[in-house]
């Protein structure tokens, strides 16, 4: 059997009623949150809409024009009707000859915005807005078609899991040769880590950037440069090399739109990560997340969710079920936003303390549970980080076991672990050794899914059932939370510290001032077009 045709992963004997119960509870928890998302908008959703209408660039202080225009509209008429109606109304009244000039004038306060009262004027403004946003959506469609064409011509990687490697120099012009070298060395997916701190910027930086901290800024131009470089190396290698970035933080919707327009292939996009780990306001996050996922669905972008983070802050054995709960919630929110299972890169990680007895068997149980609960999702398998101590030799062994667990349980996307995790940003030789580790395991044990059949009442099966039942218990407990009007049990649970011990009340957190409740007349042509297209 060749390692390129992998047998389906081993089956766990899970009680289908328990699995159904878990999904029912996830839906029950998610729906009121979606209702809240659908009845609010945010500055970033509005800015993303303007970006789809072609507004780009920034002033001499590098403040983007989309920020100026949204702020200008907001000061005069508020966000609750959406910005597109007042913006295209102003253009119709010839406040400015075009969108860019209007934004420039808005930055000096020399435009007057209004919500047109006459029905004719209102619908004319809306029609104009829709016509202006449509080319942005078409551009996303064209990029998706281009990806399909390139994958058709060049092909997908011949093996599973896909090998996912990180590049992070801070300088896009250094990232490019490193990414190309990583692709030549065997990477199927290149992720450009963002600069530390970008998640909390309430604007998207502009242009090609050469200064970042432990990562490179996500900008439209950086996206374009890297995608072009990977297209070049894809042709050379005869396989389509995918590009990943982050649609997270305060600008999640805008970055999703830019990713769609510049043909990124995967985006980190978790439903709760920003709330819990970046203290971003929960309502802001859920609104932004829904829009960004609608864009990803349209663009054919695989989302990567961040369940690995739960295990780095909590104990990977005690908190194993929180990963399952988060995966179920991410699945619900993704489906609601129109993402098919094939685009759901649900995450999980190999983070059990290696000193714990039977740690590898538990890892196999957890990995198989995720594999079986989400059979069609391209699961993302994350390497050990928490127990990488600086002993690079022990770390290399641990990464080997991580790779083996990935092969045995049929994972889809494998983030390559570095033995120098927690020591240095990966050196050239670290990456080379890490890829040798992955390739050895794939070569030696790629077909092991065929032979590996955990016995029905053995350790692995029992542990998987236990984690699933703990996940259902947690979902039940959250569902029972009392939620006042305008809230939801899930928001209350996030508020009182159910996840990762972090309390995130729904009326606190960063970016709250950028949230507005939608008025009855709210209009957003991007959302309309996205919903028409995906349903």
């Amino acid at each position, binding site marked *: 059997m060749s390692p390129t045709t992998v047998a389906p992963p081993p089956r766990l004997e899970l009680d289908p009623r328990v699995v159904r119960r878990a999904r029912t509870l996830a839906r029950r928890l998610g729906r009121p949150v979606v209702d809240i998302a659908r009845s609010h908008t945010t500055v970033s959703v509005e800015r993303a809409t303007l970006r789809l209408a072609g507004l780009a660039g920034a002033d001499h202080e590098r403040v983007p024009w989309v920020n100026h225009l949204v702020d200008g509209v907001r000061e005069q008429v508020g966000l609750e009707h959406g910005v597109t109606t007042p913006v295209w109304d102003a253009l119709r009244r010839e406040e400015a000859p075009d969108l860019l000039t209007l934004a420039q004038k808005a930055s000096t306060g020399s435009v007057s915005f209004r919500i047109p009262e006459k029905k004719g004027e209102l619908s004319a403004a809306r029609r104009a807005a829709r016509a202006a946003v449509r080319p942005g959506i078409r551009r996303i469609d064209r990029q998706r078609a281009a990806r399909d064409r390139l994958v058709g011509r060049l092909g997908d990687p011949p093996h599973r899991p896909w090998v996912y490697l990180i590049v992070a120099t801070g300088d896009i012009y250094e990232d490019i040769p490193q990414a190309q070298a990583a692709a030549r060395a065997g990477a199927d997916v290149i992720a450009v880590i963002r600069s530390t701190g970008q998640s909390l910027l309430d604007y998207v930086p502009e242009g090609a950037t050469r200064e970042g901290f432990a990562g490179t800024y996500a900008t439209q131009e950086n996206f374009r440069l890297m995608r072009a470089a990977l297209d070049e190396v894809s042709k050379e290698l005869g396989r389509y090399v995918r590009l990943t970035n982050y649609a997270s933080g305060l600008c999640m919707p805008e970055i999703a739109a830019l990713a769609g327009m510049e043909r990124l292939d995967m985006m980190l996009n978790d439903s709760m990560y920003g709330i819990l780990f*970046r203290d971003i306001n929960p309502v802001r996050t859920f609104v932004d997340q829904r829009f960004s996922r609608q864009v990803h669905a349209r663009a054919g972008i695989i989302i990567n969710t961040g369940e690995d983070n739960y295990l780095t802050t909590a104990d990977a054995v005690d908190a194993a079920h929180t990963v399952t709960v988060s995966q179920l919630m991410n699945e619900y929110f993704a489906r609601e936003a129109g993402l098919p299972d094939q685009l759901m890169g649900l995450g999980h990680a190999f983070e059990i303390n290696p000193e714990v007895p039977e740690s590898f068997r538990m890892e196999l149980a957890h990995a198989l549970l995720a594999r079986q609960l989400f059979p069609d999702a391209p699961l993302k398998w994350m390497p050990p980080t928490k127990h990488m101590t600086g002993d690079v030799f022990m770390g290399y062994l641990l990464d080997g076991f991580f790779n083996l667990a990935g092969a045995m349980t049929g994972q889809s996307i494998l983030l390559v672990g570095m033995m120098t995790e*927690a020591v240095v940003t990966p050196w*050239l*030789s670290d990456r080379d050794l890490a890829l040798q580790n992955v390739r050895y395991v794939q070569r030696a044990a790629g077909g092991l899914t065929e032979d590996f059949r955990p016995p029905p009442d053995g350790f692995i099966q029992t542990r998987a059932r236990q984690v699933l039942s703990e996940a259902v218990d947690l979902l039940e407990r959250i569902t029972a939370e009392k939620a006042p009007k305008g809230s939801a049990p899930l928001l209350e649970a996030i508020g009182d510290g159910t996840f990762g011990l972090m309390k995130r009340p729904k009326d606190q957190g960063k970016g709250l001032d950028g949230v507005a409740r939608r008025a009855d007349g709210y209009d957003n042509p991007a959302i309309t077009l996205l919903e028409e297209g995906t349903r």
Partner: protein
Amino acid sequence: MTEQPTVIRPYGDTTGDGMVQVSFTLPVPHDKRAEGAALQLAGKMGMSPALLVHAKAVGPAHTFFVVYGSVTHLVDLSAVQVVERDFPLLTPKDVNAAIKKQLRRPLVVVGACIGTDAHTVGIDAILNIKGFAGEKGLEYYSEIQVVNLGAQVLVPELVERAREAQADAVLVSQVVTQRDAHIHNTTQMSAAFREAYPAGKVPLLVVGGPRFEEGSADRLGVDRIFGKGTTPAEVASYLVHALAAEPTPERNTA
């Protein structure tokens, strides 16, 4: 009992053999000359004889090497200087008792990751109840009141919140740093505190992170630096040592 020698060499499998291993990459294609270059470097590093055990091309322009050899350098134990822990390690119970006795009120600790650093693993390991290495964090101590501001806190905000909370100590973590950002951030932070507080009233400033140099506290304007592997109990014990060990004059008792 034989006396411990003061001059030692690395130990491979025989006392005094001086054996070490190193690995490195040179930016040259893999060929005979590259291997010679690796041996030249090993020689200059004091390895003699040096044994090139592995060489492998990493792409077209780089070669990775593993070299074993005996180093000619000697280690003089009598000349080794380290900063030993200069305070007793206390149990949570003793920490609480000391604070109760000396301060007669909870000790207030404000913690944050400052600058662009979004990695709260360090500060959380020390502050969160969950703790680190099996030890509970400072939140667990009944006599320590913890205000954890989380990640990416701006220095002025940190000063403001420290004043509001009447902090006895400020803990700052810097994990991910590039181009010496941790040094820049720390000196900026200590300067801001000195500016905002009257002389002698500045809270105890403590920084932690894997990149700080031992013994650079004075240079950075802080009271203490903690490195990789520090546990919550060590930090708590130090706070007691610095703030509640002996009758302290009114410190933020306003």
